[in-house]
Each structure stands twice: as C-alpha cells, then as structure tokens.
C-alpha cells in the first residue's frame, strides 16, 4: 500500500496551485467584495485543461485520473471555494454524468466541448421547494413525439448564468409507483427558447462565484438529449451527486489546509503576554486539531478517488469524505478566525472568507444531515447497492489517453 503521490500527481498539484496562486489569488478579495466572478477564471481553467482534467482524451479531456481531479480541487479551494465550485458543477454534476450515463453520441456532442473548456456545464437539480427531498421535485417533462417539453424552476444552481449546458432532472411520470421512479434526466442547452435565468445575490459566502436560478417554460428538447432511460433520473442524479460530492470533499480538505496555514503564519507573528501566540497552549490546541483534520479529510477523499479509479462503487466513502471534510473545514475556518482575534473578523485577512465559504458546503451537494442518513443506512445494513446500469468507468490510462 503506497500512500505516496506519484510524480505525475505531484506535478498536477504544483501546476494547479501555481495557477490559482498566481492568477486568482491577487484579485480574489476584490471579487468577493464585489460579489462577482472574475471574467478570466473560466476561460483560463478551460485553456489550461483543468475543466477536462479527468475526461478521456478522445472526448477532449486531459486523460488524468480521478485522484488528479481531487488534488486539483484541493488546490483550487485552498485559494477560494468558488474555483472548486466550478469543478463541482461543470465536472462533477455535468461532465462526469455524461461520461457515466451518456450515449456515445451525447459524449461526442456535449462532453467533448465541455472537456475542452469550450462550453461550461452545470447541474440543474434543486428547486425552490425541493433540495434534500429530491424525489419530490416538481419540474416536469412531457413527451411529445420526438421531443420532451420541460417546465419548472430550478434554484441554487452554481454557474446558472455562465453555463452553456445543464444536466436537468424533471418528473416525466407523475403516476410512477414511487416518486423517485418517475424522474428523467436531460442534457439541455441553456440558450433554448423558454429558458430564462438569473443570479442570486446576498449569499453568505462563495460571493466571488455565480449562483442562480433557471426557469423552464415549455422548453422543447430532442429525445436524443435524454440521459439514461425514462425513470432513471433519480439514479442519474444520485450518480451526479456522488461525483460532485467527491470534489466538495477534496476541496474542503484544501480549505482546512488554507485555514491551518493562515493560522500557523499568524500565530508565529502575533505576540501576547510576552511570546508568540503559537506558544500558548489554547492556540496550539486549535492548530493541532486543524492539522489532524486536514490529514483525515485528505485521506478520506484520496481513498474515494482511488475507489473511483478502480471502478468501485463509492457512495458510502464519498459521503463520509464530504461530511467529515465540510464539517471540519467550517470548524477550522472558524477557529482560524479566533486565532486571528479581531483581525480575523475583518476582511483584511482571508480567514473570514474561508469561514463564510465553508458554511455553504455543509448544506449543498447533499446536506450533512442527508450524509448522516446515507452513512447510517450503510452501517446498519439497510442499504445494499445494486449495480447501476451505467457505472462511472474505472480509470484505464490506455483508454483515457488514446485519441
């Protein structure tokens, strides 16, 4: 069992870290204050191949593995959560769902431009009235000949106003025996007639990002855009969350690390009662905990990434990773604010932004309460996974790196 990263993985880490530090870090505070995503972020992530990092080369991607995706997310979120949110929705919810459930034609048509960074993707699942209780979403899809007609409203969609495509799940069968069995997913171009979208402002955190709503009014979508079969929408969506959740877990580890590094630097500089506060035990306790939680979070997401590489179902492990890391990242950020004293309360330092950003991750991509229920179901043996009709493909360099 080798706990070390390969030379390849280390170079990936360095590359993404250098990009985020050099090109995003300098302007991030201003962007967060303004509540706007910096315009160069998406194009640069596209140009550098980050938006297609773990997609096979034949679909326009970079052919790296799922661990590389996790490492990239950790480095991105160490600078700002909004960078990682891009990966969560573009890659996790949209691209990887296509990789897992898409037809060959859908992969050529949609996945390829997404992986190249020519198009941006997002996941349109949550609604004003349904988040955790996904089975009871209200948006509908009605089959009419070769098309489906979509109606409804999706909310809390990251990159809603920036994306070109959305993975959308709606109810196509109101009479299904179980509500979850009546859902169907589609890949939808967001410039179709009947689609309107807007931004949501006033969020506590991830302000340098873009979160919004998408409204569908009699939006006609070819049947060829259906991802999976009718009635598989719940499974497709849960797969999407398994992938998005993984990026959230990896990113949160990066956030813990950022809080830790900021706290260590500050504690060594700031003096109180005759010595650097790093030498006071109550401060040391906070730092020790952050350091430990970083290690745990990191090991959990790397293990989940490894399982994805092996083609092993990892819903349980990804849930644990996301739950632990997001909870720990909020605590770490909050304690980092405490370590910084009054300065932590000011946006002159980064730690208050870390704390506001961290809070959101406990709510989205499956609230931490939902994660608890998922884990309990597994631990109690109430839940046994049956193989999905389409699983996330195991990583095979020969396949990923052949054009």
């Amino acid at each position: 069992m080798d706990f070390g990263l390969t030379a390849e993985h280390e170079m990936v880490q360095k590359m993404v870290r250098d990009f985020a530090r050099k090109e995003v870090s300098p302007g991030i505070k201003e962007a967060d204050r303004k509540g706007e995503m910096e315009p160069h972020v998406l194009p640069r992530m596209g140009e550098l191949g980050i938006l297609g990092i773990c997609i096979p080369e034949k679909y326009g991607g970079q052919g790296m593995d799922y661990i590389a995706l996790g490492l990239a997310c950790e480095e991105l979120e160490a600078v700002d959560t909004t960078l990682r949110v891009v990966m969560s929705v573009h890659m996790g919810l949209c691209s990887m769902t296509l990789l897992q459930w898409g037809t060959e034609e859908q992969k050529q048509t949609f996945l390829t431009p997404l992986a190249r960074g020519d198009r941006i993707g997002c996941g349109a699942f949550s609604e004003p009235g349904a988040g955790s209780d996904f089975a009871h979403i209200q948006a509908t899809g009605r089959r009419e000949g070769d098309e489906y007609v979509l109606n409804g409203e999706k909310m809390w969609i990251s990159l809603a106003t920036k994306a070109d495509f959305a993975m959308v799940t709606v109810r196509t069968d109101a009479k299904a025996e179980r509500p979850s069995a009546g859902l169907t997913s589609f890949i939808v171009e967001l410039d179709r007639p009947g689609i309107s979208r807007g931004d949501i402002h006033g969020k506590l955190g991830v302000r340098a990002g873009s979160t919004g709503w998408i409204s569908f009014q009699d939006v006609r979508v070819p049947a060829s855009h259906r991802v999976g079969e009718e009635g598989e929408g719940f499974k497709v969506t849960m797969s999407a969350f398994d992938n998005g959740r993984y990026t959230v877990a990896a990113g949160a580890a990066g956030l813990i690390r950022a809080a830790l590094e900021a706290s260590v630097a500050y504690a060594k500089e700031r003096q109180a009662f005759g010595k650097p506060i790093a030498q006071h035990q109550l401060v040391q306790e906070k730092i020790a905990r952050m350091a430990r939680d970083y290690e745990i979070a990191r090991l959990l997401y790397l293990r989940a990434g490894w399982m994805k590489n092996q083609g092993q179902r990892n819903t349980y492990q990804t849930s644990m990773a996301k739950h632990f890391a997001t909870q720990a990242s909020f605590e770490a950020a909050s304690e980092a604010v405490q370590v910084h004293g009054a300065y932590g309360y000011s946006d002159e330092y980064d730690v208050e932004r870390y704390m506001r950003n961290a809070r959101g991750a406990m709510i989205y991509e499956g609230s931490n309460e939902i994660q608890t229920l998922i884990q309990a179901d597994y631990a109690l043996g109430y839940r046994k996974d049956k193989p999905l009709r389409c699983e996330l493909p195991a990583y095979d360099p020969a396949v990923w790196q052949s054009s």
Partner: protein
Amino acid sequence: MNIVVCVKQTPDTAATVTVEDGKVSWGDAPLVLNPWDEYAVEEALRLKEAHGGKVTAISMGPEDAREALKQSLAMGCDEAILLSDAVFAGLDTLGASKVLAAAIQHIGDVDLVFFGRSSVDSDTGITGSQVARRLGWPALSLVAKISAIDPDSRRIEVERMLEEGRQRVAGPLPAVLSVVKEINEPRYPSFMGIRKAARAEIPVWSAAEIGLTEELKAAVEWPEIFAPPKVETECEFIEGESADEIAQKLADRLMEEKVI
C-alpha cells in the same frame, strides 16, 4: 531550429537555507527547476512554436538530479539529458562550461543555446558566457527581448538589459543567450506534458560519452560557507540642531555603513 536549454536544479526559493556541518542545508524544501531557467525554457519553446524544430534540456548534476529536467519536459521540451559523472562533482563554472560545451557539441547542429540569467543558489551569472566562449559563439546575456530571428539567414537581434538601459545587439547564429524575466511569462506545464515527464526515461551522459577525456579540475575553491552575522538592531537615533543637519548626518551614516 535545434535549440538547447541548459537548466539547473536548485532548492525552492522559499526554503530556509542554513549551514549544517559546513554544508548548505534546505531542510525538506523541494528541489525545483531554477526559477530563471523557466524563462529560458519558455523562450526556447516559443521559438520552436514559431519556427519549428526541437528543444532539448540538458542539466549537469548528480544521478538523482532530474526534477529540473522533468519540469522542462512537462513544460514542453522534446528531450532531456542529464550530464552526470563522478568527475563533474565540485566543478566551478570553468569546468562546468567545459562539460556543457562538450555536450552541446555532442548534440550537434545546435542553432541556439539558452540559459537563465543565473542560478539562485550559486548566483554567478557567468556560465553562459563561458560556454559561448568555449564554443566560439557570440554570448548575448541578460536578454530581455528577441527582437528578430531568422534561422535561414542565420541572424538574431536582441535587447539586453544593462544597468543604463537596453542595448540592442545583432549577431549570427549559432549563439548563446541568457535571459531575464522581462522576456516572457513562463507557461504552466500541461497535463499531457506532466504525463510525458513523469514517464520519461532520461538518458545520462558521462564524461566519456561527450568526449571529455582530459582531467577536469576546479580553478576555484570554497573553503567556507556561513550565515551572515546577525546585526544587532539597537536603533541609532540621528539627532541635530536642524533638519538639514540631521539629514546630512543620516546620509553620511548610510554611506558609511554601505547601506546605499
């Protein structure tokens, strides 16, 4: 164009360097591509993209000194070669320039050689010029811009950063250039480049392989390395009858202490 970039492996500049047992120690800070060399690699790659050809990175170092070469491959160099031999250990720039010049001649048909302006460890900034002299090629150091290059008519025009301003110089190819950071913005390694670099088998050339049979002996010796003495900061307050007097005294003190 057949381009060679001479790169060096150095400790990360953020490392805390200390002296332990008379030797420099950088703790567990990583060894990286010398930051100035990134600009050299970048410029070489840009020329290749504009004119076609090949970029080879070469580095003189111990057997395990491959980081700088891997980074160069990841950025996009076509090939990387490690020059390693017991007789290369402890060489000064005089000796190193002999090794590098021999390697460049062994590669053969080279149009342009790039160096970074200096390496962040020993910081001499003269190896490039010495390699040029040995090869009998023009040395153009501190290049901030390649204004023109014509591989067919074998001519290059550059702007060099002198203290007094930019000097414009023209010369024939082949030539040896050292570059400064004003010349470009180095690219990040691509993911494909990273994969290629991670898998690369880097050939090692010994002295014999590059045709160096004569004895190599350093002309320079480094008998001691030490940390600069800590200056006790007891503030020296400059006083006087008038602001003018104070200003004069302060200026004098600054000049005396060679602060300015």
